[in-house]
């Protein structure tokens, strides 16, 4: 039973990161109907920036802030310089361009930083402390929950309580109508990319220390899990992304705990296939609003 609790908490803390990363995918999907396959590479680039800043200043938090700001700017740059010019007549175009961005980003990072794994620092200890006699959570896990929780709350407030959030939602659902009502739809799209890339960078900052270390391809496997989480959640739904992230995190944790770590990636792929076949709209797809 102890082991079950341990795996559950471990799964939730992994899942929180997938949730954040899936949220980033959902933000862009809602704004632009593109699955940003470059999200992982962009996040890694931001983590490298943090690595450099922390290396130069000795401060984790300066590096942390630099990663988020860099992510924001990178999102703006990618949208304004690349994605804006993608022809949307076929959904494949965006995917191909994003994959091209992955290759370029990973190539540049490899040239600048080299292709070896680099150890990264964490702001809190990663060894678990005891809760009621069971070692469940580390301080770092608590930090992850708090950071992801803060992002979820901030995004929820943004979308439901602010004028910018209302504009972003309207621009995503009905661009022409929104323009007729004075919404600068292009600007909202850029804002969506900026926010998504910043959230993706945060997810990268949280997950890289828990994996093998920093490497240009460090987020590739995480991307698959987060993409599955987003699909499970329906791609359109922020709540779905968070729930999907936690589901995938728990699945990975239980499967690797009870069946072995090598089986875990297959379990994620299996989940992806089952959801795509069984409920392609995701488990949380909001009912037929667009058809109305």
């Amino acid at each position, binding site marked *: 039973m102890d082991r079950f609790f341990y795996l559950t908490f471990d799964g939730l803390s992994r899942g929180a990161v997938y949730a954040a990363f899936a949220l980033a995918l959902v933000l862009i999907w809602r704004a632009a109907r593109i699955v940003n396959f470059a999200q992982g590479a962009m996040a890694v680039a931001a983590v490298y920036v943090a690595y450099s800043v922390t290396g130069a200043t000795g401060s984790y938090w300066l590096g942390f802030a630099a990663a988020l700001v860099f992510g924001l700017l990178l999102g703006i740059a990618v949208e304004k310089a690349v994605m804006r010019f993608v022809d949307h007549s076929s959904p494949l175009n965006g995917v191909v361009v994003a994959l091209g961005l992955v290759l370029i980003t990973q190539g540049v990072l490899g040239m600048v930083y080299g292709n070896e794994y680099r150890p990264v620092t964490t702001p809190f200890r990663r060894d678990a402390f005891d809760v009621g006699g069971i070692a469940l959570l580390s301080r770092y896990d608590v930090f992850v929950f708090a950071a992801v929780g803060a992002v979820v709350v901030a995004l929820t407030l943004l979308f439901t309580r602010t*004028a910018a959030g*209302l504009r972003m939602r309207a621009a995503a659902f*009905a661009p022409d109508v929104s*323009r*007729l*009502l004075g919404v600068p739809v292009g600007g909202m799209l850029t804002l969506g990319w900026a926010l998504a890339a910043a959230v993706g960078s945060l997810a990268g900052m949280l997950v890289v220390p828990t994996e093998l270390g920093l490497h240009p391809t460090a987020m590739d496997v995480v991307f698959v899990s987060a993409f599955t989480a987003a699909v499970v959640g329906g791609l359109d739904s922020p709540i779905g992304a968070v729930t999907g992230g936690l589901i995938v995190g728990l699945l990975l944790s239980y499967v690797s705990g009870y069946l072995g770590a090598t089986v875990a990636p297959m379990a994620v792929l299996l989940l992806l296939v089952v959801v795509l076949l069984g409920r392609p709209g995701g488990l949380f797809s909001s009912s037929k*609003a667009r058809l109305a």
Partner: protein
Amino acid sequence: MAVNPDEPYRKQSGLLEVEDLTAGYGAAPVLHDVRFTVRPGQIVAVLGANGAGKTTLLRALSGLVEADHGRIVFDGEDLRDVKVEQMVRRGIAHVPEGRGVVTELTVDENLRLGGLWRRDRADAARALDEVYDLFPALAQRRASAGHQLSGGERQMLALGRALIGRPRLLLLDEPSLGLAPRITAQILALLRELRDRTGLAVLLVEQNVRSALSVADEGIVLSLGRVVTRNSAADLRDDADLRHAYLGF
């Protein structure tokens, strides 16, 4: 910003002047050398068969369709370089074909969206209250999602949302589509009332020629993208040949 109701015909020249407008989608233009004027406080009906180019005309006026040549002048300003999202700031509100209710947003969110661009927040809030007074059915459904509304409620929502910007020119594309005759009559009567009260000018695209001509001051008839007739609403109503040739009744 409404026209001062005390002097609705202050400007003698047109509020909207369209000169030799040619526009369409890609290679072959849909509209050819369209030319007409809308004066402040005037209701002009745009009539014509399916595919005549009525919707395209409204879309060209609000910038959603690019003009190939010709001029669109609103209140003395050439609209050529004005972006779509700036039109509402000029005083042009476009209620598109199919109403354009954002079905994922609630009634209240749809209405607030119509006023977000306004600097005068106090007046935007006042306008919101006025719309709820004007359409009590909407006030009861503030929190309902757009896709839960009936056709008539959607039309009220689209119209109300446009009014929150206090436009000077309303571009209205087939408000009667799918509505019961009684509701259509209510909406058209409302247009007249708004015109009388605020000096609002309306360009009204309608399939329902009879009702359109009953509220309009003038009508223009489009056929294959050209203006074939422009006349007072009364004369158009009486012109049997024209009705047979272009309007089908």
